[in-house]
């Protein structure tokens, strides 16, 4: 709870807050960071292996191998989400499995599975991007801002 709101609380509530703060289980922040780092890194290593595989055995360059790699990773995520394995990975590693593209795939696929009961159009179609929508909105917006800054810096900033 925000500190400003805490000051406006009645005394009993403030006492309870202090009691709760003492008893609350502390989050193992460093442990979580380490877990996220290694699992996220492992996902990226798998991605790199897939990219290398496409470069060696198909007609893809480093530049063009990105798209099939992402597709393959999302396909693997789809299977893992369907079998309920990705949820466990997410539970264990937190941001490590949410930040790479597989996390985004999981957000879309799990929503699609969840709303399947409401039909394909109003269920899956309407709710599939409920979780992933903000990611797309802010991703596109951030990319726009960065592109604008880069254009300004390269054209008029002399970079």
């Amino acid at each position, binding site marked *: 709870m925000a500190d400003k709101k805490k000051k406006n609380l009645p005394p009993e509530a403030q006492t309870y807050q202090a009691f709760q703060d003492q008893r609350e289980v502390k989050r193992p922040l*460093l442990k979580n960071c380490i877990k996220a780092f290694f699992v996220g890194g492992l996902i990226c290593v798998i991605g790199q292996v897939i990219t290398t595989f496409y470069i*060696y055995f198909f007609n893809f360059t480093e*530049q*063009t191998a990105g798209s099939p790699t992402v597709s393959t990773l999302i396909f693997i995520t789809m299977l893992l989400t369907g079998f309920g394995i990705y949820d466990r990975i997410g539970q264990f590693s937190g941001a490590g499995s949410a930040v790479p593209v597989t996390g985004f795939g999981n957000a879309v696929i799990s929503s699609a599975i969840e709303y399947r009961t409401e039909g394909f159009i109003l269920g899956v179609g309407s709710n599939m991007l409920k979780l992933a929508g903000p990611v797309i909105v802010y991703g596109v917006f951030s990319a726009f801002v960065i592109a604008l800054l880069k254009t300004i810096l390269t054209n008029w900033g002399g970079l």
Partner: protein
Amino acid sequence: MKAVKAILLFSFGLLLIGCGTDTTQESIDNNNYNNHIEFNQITANKKSITQDSANQAKEYLSVHDEVNTIHAVNTSKKLLIAIEVPHHERFGLAQIQKDRTKDMEDKFPNMEVEISTDKKIVLELERIEEALEADSISKEELEKELDKVINLSKEQT
């Protein structure tokens, strides 16, 4: 909490130090770095086009520190060079490619020069070089193969 912050700050500091270039080590390496550059001179054969321009290009490029491996193949009008750069130099990949392309264009004004740092192009040129060495590729086949690889190197999506 303070300990966690301190550890995170310390790790970040280490990361920054790790990413910095070690100039003293680099200057020591520079003296014998060029011995590590891998390239094969392709001997001219009867069936195909002589690879003199490609061999010259390899020699010119082998003096640069930011190159690990060089592969090059030429036809009568085109010269395609693929270079591998050390991993820590990959941040400046675009600049390296731009500088070396300019160098080679100055050295070979009568040829269409293409330089690529892509692993796929390195593999493809290695394959063509082996075929040239084994004398198993004709002039027409070489031109066709090289055009295909040049198109591949220009693909964006």
